[in-house]
Structures are given as structure tokens and as C-alpha cells.
């Protein structure tokens, strides 16, 4: 096993990886940008090294510097987490050349899977079903032509993309031009590459993904599926495992497809094959994420397997002690991503200092935080401040616990998506488990219709507003009144004057 690992990331995932290191008795070295000196991942680390200014491009994305820090502090391996350098094909190469183990697949695998177009071709060969689309990079004209031919709805995607950036759904040919332009600009901004490709859009699609583990000895297993259909702007917001409306047969076939995909490219480490599933139970390969997923925790909850520790052990050359028949699904888990954003004003980012932070507890609750009371949330990085995962013997219990936990979760100083999640946990469609990726757009666009309990809540809100306003005004009045009074510095002066007077009388 390694003695020291450098974590080339920040926030909750850096903390998650540090925890895995500590449980393995491995020293964890963190890196931090100028604005992250006091971040939680630094506080939990055994070692910490500055990596540059706030802008990610100048710090967490500076591959050469990160590798140099690892070499200098004697780290034998680097864990990239997600985002940042985690899916840059050149980074594993860079590590290898520096004699440092990269915790993840090879650069070649990343390049194959990282470029959506190549990935589709590879999967097609491996016999994994894919969505009809154009795989070669397209000019705007060619793209428009193809869309007119196959007809909308179609999905425009960035070839180098991920996490929904640069993705645009086109339901009408008239939108094509603007959609292409915006997609290219976002793709350029996010990935420095404006290559696009286009796919037929699957109706009523559900996003179901398979978690796989592959060691360096050729053993590949899957840890079942996660459903991530609750998405906003193609960003996952809530995930659950196992998936809704899943059958043992479909699960088996999707699992085999994912394992096949991993074998085809000689995958090593933890990875995820994302699929779209339609109401008929037909599934199509979407993409493979060659890194740990944000939502890996729900799989850990239902299988008991510590995925991040497995990644480290695999990178250290260990054989998987797990076999497909020795892993099973125990209960149900749900994850709610807590973002620093204001659900009331179109989910605008809400940076600031976290003034109060009270996390939920009790049975079946897991919180992975990237912040603490006193921490600053800046505009420079991803706005996710915490992941809340609940487990239950069945889905209803997991939901009951999520609702309960959200009501206990208090974050002050920044706005968060907690109230949004509470609304989802009240929504009949979600409770039924009958929803697709259109869930938020379809059901949560409009304000919630007022009900009795909302009216009671409003009355209390009005009362407390009056009380708070009164307290504030009272405070102001008292401070004003206090000013002239002879306390503190004032008293000193008074004393001084008395002394002078006594002197005068002598």
C-alpha cells in the first residue's frame, strides 16, 4: 500500500478521499489555491501545499505543477477526484512519466472514452446499444442538415464535454442556429474545444448508470445501478439506488453491458457507464465516466463497499477481494446534492461565508460536507457544498429519512437548494418513483400551489418578520442611545477630566 497520496482536488470530494486515506493508514497531501488556505480539505489533510491563484486554470488545473508538488513531497500516487484534471488524458501520462501512480485508468482509456465520438464507435463495436446520431464532428451547416433529415427532438453535445456543459436540446428546427452557437461557446469556455456532435433525443428518458470496479489483474465487477433522472440543465440534482422500475433481467443485461464496455477498453479502477432507458426498458449507452462519481455514496450505502478505498487498493496493485456473486443490494439509498444557490431566483449561485452549519444526524444519514461554519464559498469553483445521503430498508424509508434530514439541515450565510429538495420529497410523482429526466422542467417550474400547512407557515413567517424587524430597530435605537453614555473610552476621558479638575484644586 502507498505511504502517501496527493489529492489533486478540493471541496467535499477531496475530503472524501482524505477520509479513505486515513482509514487505510495512508498520509493524505492536499493542494490549495490562494482562496482555499482555510478550506475543509486542507484542515483534514496531513500535508498541504499551495498550488496557485484562485482561478482553477492557474491552480487546480496546472497539471505539471500538481505532479511536481507530488514528486517534491514524496507522494507515490495522485487521486484526481472528479472534475478538474480527473478526465484529462494527458494527466495519467504525465504522472507515469514522473514515476507517480495515477489512481484511475490509463491516458489511452481516457482518450477513447473521453471523446464521446470515439467512445460511441468503440461501444458500437463492443455490441453495447447506442443512441442514433452523427459521430463525426460537424460544421453548423452539416449539423443543421442532419437535424432537418432525422427531425427533432435532437440533443447537441460537446465532444469533449461532461456534466451537461455545452449540451442543448433542440425541439424545433428554428432553434438550431442559436443552440449550436451557445453550445459551441460553452464548450469552448469549459473544455477549450468547441467540437460538437448530435444525437436523436430519447423520449421520456431515464438516466440509469452502472458502477464498475476493475483491478489490474483483469477482474471486472459491477456494483449495480444508480438512477439520476432528477436533473436541472442536465446537471444531476438527486440520485437513488437501486433504480425505479428496474427488473432483475434489465439489471443483469445493463450490468453485463457495462462490464463488457470496461473489458473492451482494458479499464482499470472505478468507472461508470451512463445509459438512457426508455419506458419500454430499452437502454442506450450515453458515456463512460472514467473517475469517481459525485453520487458514488449511494452505491456505497446499498452495497457496503467503500468505492474510494477500492480505487486506492486497485491502484496499489491489489486483487479485488470482491466477486460479483459476493456483492448484493441491501435496502435503498437517495442522495440530495446541496448547492450554494438560490432556488427562488433561478438557482443563481449564492457565494458567501457560511455563518451557521448544522448537519442532520441519527440513523441512515450520511453527510459529505465541503464546508464548515466559518468557511467561505467562492464563485471560483463548483457550487456544491454538501451531499446528503439517506439509507432505508426500502425506498419509502429512505425518502422518510431524507425528508426528516432536510428539515434538520441548517445552513446560514448562503442560500442553498435545501428547500428545493424538500419540495421534491413532497412531490407525488417523485414519491411514486415514476419520473424521467424531464421531471424538474415538467413539474417544478411553477410555484407550489398553496395548501393549509403553507398558510400556517406563512402566518409564522409574517410574525417572525415583524419580531425580527422590531429586534433590529430596537438594537439600532439602543446603539444610538448608548453612544453618548460614559462607558468604555468615554469613561477614560471622564476620568481624565476629573483628574485635571483635582489638579486644578490643589
Amino acid at each position, binding site marked *: 500500500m502507498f505511504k502517501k497520496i496527493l489529492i489533486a482536488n478540493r471541496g467535499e470530494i477531496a475530503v472524501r478521499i482524505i477520509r479513505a486515506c486515513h482509514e487505510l493508514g495512508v498520509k493524505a497531501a492536499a493542494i490549495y489555491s490562494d482562496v482555499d488556505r482555510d478550506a475543509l480539505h486542507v484542515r483534514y489533510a496531513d500535508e498541504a501545499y499551495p498550488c496557485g491563484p484562485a482561478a482553477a486554470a492557474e491552480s487546480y488545473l496546472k497539471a505539471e505543477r500538481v505532479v511536481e508538488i507530488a514528486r517534491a513531497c514524496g507522494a507515490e500516487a495522485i487521486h484526481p477526484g472528479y472534475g478538474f484534471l480527473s478526465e484529462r488524458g494527458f494527466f495519467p501520462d504525465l504522472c507515469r512519466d514522473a514515476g507517480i501512480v495515477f489512481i484511475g485508468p490509463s491516458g489511452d482509456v481516457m482518450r477513447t472514452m473521453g471523446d464521446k465520438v470515439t467512445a460511441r464507435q468503440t461501444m458500437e463495436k463492443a455490441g453495447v446499444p447506442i443512441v442514433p446520431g452523427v459521430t463525426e464532428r460537424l460544421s453548423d451547416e452539416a449539423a443543421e442538415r442532419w437535424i432537418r433529415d432525422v427531425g427533432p427532438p435532437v440533443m447537441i453535445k460537446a465532444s469533449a464535454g461532461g456534466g451537461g*456543459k455545452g449540451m442543448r436540446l433542440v425541439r424545433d428546427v428554428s432553434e438550431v442556429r442559436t443552440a449550436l452557437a*451557445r453550445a459551441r*461557446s*460553452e464548450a469552448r*469556455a*469549459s473544455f477549450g474545444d468547441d467540437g460538437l456532435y448530435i444525437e436523436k433525443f430519447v423520449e421520456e428518458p431515464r438516466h440509469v448508470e452502472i458502477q464498475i470496479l476493475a483491478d489490474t489483474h483483469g477482474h471486472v465487477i459491477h456494483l449495480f445501478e444508480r438512477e439520476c433522472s432528477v436533473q436541472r*440543465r442536465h446537471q444531476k440534482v438527486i440520485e437513488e439506488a437501486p433504480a425505479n422500475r428496474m427488473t432483475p433481467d434489465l439489471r443483469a443485461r445493463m450490468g453485463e453491458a457495462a462490464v463488457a464496455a470496461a473489458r473492451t477498453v482494458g479499464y482499470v479502477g472505478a468507472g461508470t457507464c451512463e445509459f438512457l432507458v426508455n419506458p419500454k426498458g430499452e437502454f442506450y449507452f450515453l458515456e463512460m465516466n472514467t473517475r469517481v462519481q459525485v453520487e458514488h455514496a449511494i452505491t456505497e450505502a446499498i452495497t457496503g463497499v467503500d468505492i474510494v478505498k477500492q480505487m486506492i487498493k486497485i491502484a496499489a496493485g491489489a486483487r479485488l477481494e470482491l466477486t460479483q456473486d459476493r456483492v448484493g443490494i441491501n435496502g435503498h439509498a437517495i442522495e440530495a446534492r446541496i448547492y450554494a444557490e*438560490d*432556488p*427562488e*431566483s*433561478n438557482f*443563481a*449561485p*449564492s*457565494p458567501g461565508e457560511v*455563518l*451557521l452549519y*448544522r448537519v442532520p444526524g441519527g440513523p441512515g444519514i450520511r453527510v459529505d460536507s465541503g464546508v464548515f461554519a466559518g468557511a467561505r464559498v467562492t*464563485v*471560483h*469553483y*463548483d*457550487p456544491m457544498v454538501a451531499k446528503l445521503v439517506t439509507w432505508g430498508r426500502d425506498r419509502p424509508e429512505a425518502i422518510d429519512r431524507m425528508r426528516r434530514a*432536510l*428539515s434538520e439541515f*441548517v445552513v*446560514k*450565510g448562503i*442560500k442553498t437548494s*435545501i*428547500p428545493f429538495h*424538500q*419540495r421534491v420529497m*413532497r412531490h407525488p410523482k417523485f414519491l411514486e418513483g415514476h419520473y424521467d429526466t424531464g421531471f424538474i422542467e415538467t413539474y417544478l417550474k411553477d410555484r407550489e400551489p398553496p395548501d393549509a*400547512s*403553507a398558510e400556517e*407557515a*406563512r*402566518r*409564522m*413567517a*409574517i*410574525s*417572525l*418578520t*415583524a*419580531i*425580527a*424587524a*422590531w429586534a*433590529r*430597530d430596537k438594537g439600532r435605537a439602543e446603539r444610538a442611545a448608548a453612544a453618548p453614555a460614559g462607558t468604555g473610552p468615554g469613561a477614560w476621558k471622564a476620568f481624565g477630566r476629573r483628574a485635571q479638575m483635582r489638579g486644578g484644586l490643589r
Partner: protein
Amino acid sequence: MIYEVSEGKTSVRVDLQQVGEGLYDVTIDGRTLRIDAVRSGRNVYSVIEGGRQWEISVDENGSHGFDVLVAGRLFHLGAVDERRKLLAAAGQVVAEGKQTVEARMPGKIVKVSVAVGDAVREGQSLLVVEAMKMENDITSPIDGRVTEVAAREGDTVETGAHLVVVDPGGEAP
């Protein structure tokens, strides 16, 4: 103490009497609630009214605004005591006239879609601000005509920065 508490365009008159340490009589439309409100930490009140307990988070938002979170529901309320009402009223007039569109968050302006003189519809995109790696559309709050554009592409702006002024006067096309 009489407060005018408003939510959007509607508002209600609230009579507040402190009757003890952290104890208040609050009268809304003639109905009086006896409210026991203790505050610990940062403005998270534990409120007991008629035996019912609520944990209520209150944040000031601007000079007269409060964001209040009750049982998973977020309310945006305003409160002015009657002496301040005239002031507030004056504010109202402005609010119903020219709209100054401000930055809701710090970020970088990646696109300005309108120029002075343009007619715009409510909800139409005025400009795009990038923050936290996301492009955010800033839209017009009303139908009207653009009378001022303070933002330039490439600018970095702080929360509250004036970006665009839209005047309902100029009739929309």
C-alpha cells in the same frame, strides 16, 4: 408597535407587543398569537405558539427585506413600521417605474444582448453572466425600452452592480 409586512404586492398590518423576555403578542387581521421566540446561534429562532414548535430561520435581505424559512418553505417578506411607510411608498413608485437590473451574483459578463433604445419584453434575455462555471441569463423584469446599458462584455461585476435600465414608458413593439 405596528408593522406593515408585505409579500410581493400584497401586504398585511401586524401589531406587535412584547409581553415578556422573548414573549410577544402578534395580531394579524384581528387574530392574536402569543409567540415564545428564542434565538440562538445565527438568527435561527425556536418558536413556540400554542404549544406548536417551529424552527424558523430569518435573514435580513436589503434594508426592509427578510428571507424567512419555515418548515421547508422560503418566504420573501418586507417589514416597515408605520413611520417608515411614506418612505416605503416612495420606494414603491420607483419600483413600479424604471427598472434597474442588477447583478444577482459576482461574475463575468460574457454577452450583452441589448443596446440603448431596444424594445424588450418581460423575460427577454438582456445579458449573460458567467459565475461558478455556469452561464446565467439575466432577463428583463418588464416590457419596455432599454434606456441605459452599464455592462460591457468581459467586465467582472459584483453583486448589486447596475447592469441595464429598462423604462416601461417606451411602448414595446
